[in-house]
């Protein structure tokens, strides 16, 4: 988006071309704004008007714990995703285009497979009697099965795998835009490969890392299936807790309050990132 190049229309003071954006705006309004407002209203009206749902939410050790845990899991997943995605994105950026598009295709393809199927596949791989533990025990590397599932490790592995494409795609865009000559220049000036990475590549790729990282973090905050199947109850995430509150306990007010708090926190994080890297760079590379 080139926000600065929009011309002002003289009539209504709206950006030129906003007429053609009307259907899209209506769509966003109908399917995003209205439900969010309804959610907020429900959280302060159900079962009766007042802030009792928010009081219950922050007064409940359970919800506070689940909140903190949700942010912990999302942070770990984001950090690991960045570490795994960076080398892949770099490889994609410097590969010959023909080969690159094949590898790209493979990465995209994984996104087309049903999420539940992929999560079940991880269950089969990670459990105590699963493929990984059996192989390691068969090779004599371990004697007791590693606890890879029903804990933070299981959630992290499963979610990083699902989040990788969302990190790789913006990163590749950013990395491709970096002039390779800058790295060559660094080498000519005597920089070691690590030094070139630390002082040239990393700073230049920060916008891509920030954009992908934010997307992964925000998506992770609301994740449901993977934590429910690969995590234990002590890693329960907010989405699962809300589902229980609404579906089983029929407490829509409390569920709405929890969902709204999560939304506000997420928006706040986005705002902070906009401040830190600037609107253009935060969206850059996607």
């Amino acid at each position, binding site marked *: 988006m080139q926000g600065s190049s929009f011309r002002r229309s003289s009539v209504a003071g709206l950006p030129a071309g906003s007429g053609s954006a009307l259907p899209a705006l209506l769509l966003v309004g109908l399917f995003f704004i*209205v*439900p969010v*407002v*309804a*959610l907020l*209203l*429900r959280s302060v*009206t*159900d079962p009766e008007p007042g802030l009792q749902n928010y009081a219950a939410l922050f007064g*409940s*050790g*359970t919800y506070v*714990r*689940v909140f903190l*845990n949700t942010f912990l899991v999302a942070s770990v997943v984001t950090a690991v995703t960045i570490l795994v995605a960076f080398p892949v994105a770099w490889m994609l950026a410097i590969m010959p285009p023909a080969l690159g598009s094949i590898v790209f295709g493979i990465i995209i393809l994984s996104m087309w497979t049903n999420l539940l199927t992929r999560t079940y596949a991880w269950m089969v791989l990670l*459990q*105590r*009697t699963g493929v990984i533990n059996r192989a390691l025990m068969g090779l004599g590397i371990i004697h007791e099965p590693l606890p890879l599932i*029903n804990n933070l490790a299981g959630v992290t592995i499963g979610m990083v795998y699902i989040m990788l494409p969302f990190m790789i795609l913006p990163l590749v865009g950013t990395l491709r835009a970096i002039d390779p000559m800058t790295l060559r220049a660094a080498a000519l000036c005597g920089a070691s490969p690590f030094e070139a990475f630390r002082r040239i590549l990393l700073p230049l790729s920060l916008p891509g890392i920030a954009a992908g990282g934010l997307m992964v973090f925000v998506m992770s905050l609301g994740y449901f299936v993977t934590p*429910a199947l690969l995590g*234990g*109850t*002590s890693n*329960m995430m907010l989405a699962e*807790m809300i*589902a*229980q509150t*609404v*579906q*089983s*306990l*029929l*407490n*829509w007010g409390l569920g709405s309050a929890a969902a709204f708090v999560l939304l506000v926190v997420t928006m706040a994080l986005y705002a902070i990132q906009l401040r830190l890297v600037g609107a253009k760079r935060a969206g850059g590379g996607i």
Partner: protein
Amino acid sequence: MKLILTGLLAGLLAATAAKADEMAFTSWGGTTQEAQTKSWAAPFEASSGIKVLQDGPTDYGKLKAMVDAGNVTWDVVDVEMDFAIKAAKDGLLEPIDYAVVPKADLDPRFSNEHSVGSFYYSFVLAWNKGTVTGEPTGWADMFDTKKFPGKRTFYKWSAPGVIEIALLADGVPADKLYPLDLDRAFKKLDTIKSDIVWWGGGAESQQLIASGEAAFGQLWNGRVFALQQDGTDVGVAWNQNLTAADVLVVPKGAKNKDSAMKFLAAATSPTGQAKFAEASGYAPINTKAKAEMPADAVKALPDAHVDGQINLDMNYWAEHRGEIATRWYAWQTK
């Protein structure tokens, strides 16, 4: 505004507006709903000409949203009995028309003004014979990690069962279970917390036991029955089996109420109940059903194990659902 929200929600949920010769039946999916389709819906369609659309899984939040919005697309829903008692109190259910549904032979434990029995089942102690040496005989063995090492699997959600199991294992006599001593139950559960793997649905419980991922578990007897039918080497202890029931309900404002009542009559008939019990291993709620079943199928039912059988108190749970759930999730997420 609340109306707009619920209207929107229900609008999204309403997949198709049902026609006069159609009705929607919702249950829990998996082997249970397959058996219900085969034993109840198929013969009912043939005899009445009313098409039964299958939907699922049962979702209490959805049910409430439909009723609140006045746009009910489910006509008959299979729910847990403690939920049905609570939902009837909250005005979410139609009364059962016992002029259409014959009541005389129904087990009075599982039918009341707003719900009619679907089937009843027992939580039993099941184990994978390949990973367990020895034979557990009661819930206390699930808490004895020295004698019986390995992971144990329990039902994940706040529902009748696990609390009672912990209390029984701690030595509370069966007739002194209620009112539930939650402090004592959680203290007992703390002793094996790190050895527990939770299951959230029937298929998951089967997978955990069949793979040996969990050595023991608290399972629905029908799921153990299905494992044994598949030839999996699973042991089962019926001592202290805990009964609970599913019931069939008609949500308030269901569009095809008349068809729904006729369906309930067919589902709770001796033949419908006998066929379902034979296919699922769950017990019939019609007292005449067993006469129509083969003798070996009767032997697999919870009815054959009334010695040491304990009835979970659905009324107690309906009364205390909220407060127990608050304690449950607080303990579980710790």
